[in-house]
């Protein structure tokens, strides 16, 4: 593939789409708006193709791990399990869509059963495990080694209890200003920090957008440059 087709063409397409979207946002030109909406609809179609690419890539990656397994090593079994579940679940979904013949998202009972009873339960369980790690970290790692760490520790404890369902009712009577203090931490120092982060991120996004538009940022084209 020539240099132009490899780099310049994707950059030109990206810049064209971006300019169109920006123009349609800031100038009320009906034709530009219609074209921008069409391009956005194309993007939705492309996303669906990306899912297929992702499916193939995950299988390829885990197949490599299985192929390269060493004697005595058992971690390859997780890769085999992942591929098996991926294929079975995808087939269940495709069967569900095909059986209704409407093109609607699947309502197949088997597909939904796996989702509600395996995916939801396992995902929630994984998230819940965080509570144990936080408990361990709070005892072993979160120490007031410096004055700054002490301030952070006290603020974190107040905010945590303020956010707990019954926190303010239990600790309110012990410290009459507990609620106001919790509110103050969230609404003053926290908000100031988050506003700074949000504005900084927005400025960063604008500069990244300009770099992409002008072809200086090429990371999205793949590895290398």
């Amino acid at each position, binding site marked *: 593939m020539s240099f132009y087709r490899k780099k310049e063409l994707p950059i030109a397409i990206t810049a064209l789409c971006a300019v169109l979207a920006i123009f349609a946002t800031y100038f009320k030109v009906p034709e530009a708006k219609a074209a921008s909406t069409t391009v956005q609809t194309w993007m939705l179609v492309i996303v669906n193709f990306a899912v297929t690419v992702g499916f193939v890539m995950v299988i390829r990656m885990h197949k490599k791990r299985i192929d390269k397994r060493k004697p005595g090593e058992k971690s390859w079994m997780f890769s085999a399990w992942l591929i098996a579940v991926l294929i079975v679940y995808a087939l269940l979904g495709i069967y569900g869509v095909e059986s209704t013949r409407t093109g609607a998202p699947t309502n197949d009972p088997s597909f939904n059963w796996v989702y509600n009873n395996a995916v939801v339960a396992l995902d929630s369980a994984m998230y*819940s495990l965080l509570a144990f790690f936080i408990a361990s970290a709070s005892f072993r790692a979160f120490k007031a080694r410096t004055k700054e760490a002490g301030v952070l520790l006290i603020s974190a404890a107040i905010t945590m209890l303020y956010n707990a369902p019954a926190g303010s009712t239990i600790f309110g009577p012990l410290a009459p200003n507990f609620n106001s203090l919790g509110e103050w931490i969230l609404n003053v120092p926290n908000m100031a920090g988050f506003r700074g982060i949000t504005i900084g991120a927005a400025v960063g996004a604008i500069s990244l957008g300009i770099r992409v538009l002008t072809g200086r940022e090429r990371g999205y084209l793949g590895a290398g440059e």
Partner: protein
Amino acid sequence: MSFWKKLEAVDVRIIYLILWIAIGIPLLTPLYLPLSISPDTVLYYKAIEALPAGSVVVLGMDVSPAGYGGELGPQARATTYHLFTKPVKVIFLSFWETGAPLIQDVWKNQFVAGELKNKKYGEDYVNLHWIPGSETGMAAFAEDIWKTVAADYKGTKLADLPMMAKIKSINDITMLIVIETGTPGGPEYLRQWQARNRNLKMLIGSLGVSVPGNIPYVASGQYISLLRGGRGATEYQRILNIVTPTDVQSADAMTMSHVVVLVFLLVGNIGYLALKGQKGGKK
């Protein structure tokens, strides 16, 4: 070995066991710990109460199963119940593929199902399921709903859903309620929806960890209010009077876990300072 030294070297399994017991007690029997209602939750409730008849509300179920299980599920169920008690039109959708299947799970809740009997699908509420494309999908939806979404979750064309006849773009929507786990979530809706319809009212149902990040948008008035994680969900359920023993157990378990973490923080730091003092004394 001194007491504090032994305490610092305590087996991590003991820490896990203490937490496990603290969470387990309320899960076995609800403690009915007292609860105050925060102003944010009251504002959230009042914003939905104030919706004029015929308003169009979008409920974005932008959640992962992890977030849905503990904090966002109760928020979504209470919000849906509240909306179904009002004479408003509701569009359910999700920009998270993991959130879309959970919309029907919300409808199964006993209180929601009770109100659902008085509503007619296609006339009072619709489920547009998953819309791909993340933030770009949001932008496309805001510009032209009919071009972006071909059919609902059953495969029914939008043209066959009477409610959708007059709902063409973001300008036809009165309120957006986002039950969010992360990105895309509230800030993306702000950029793509509220920027196009400045009159769009927004409410957020947020995970506890996301509350600090959402506070600036409430202060700026872009969000009317927000539900603060599990606490917000419990408070809202109490306002609506739809609390089940399971909800109480869940809220009590969360409070207990927070209290245990606080105790660990205190004990860990007292031990650290005591050891530091001993070392200082020896010098």
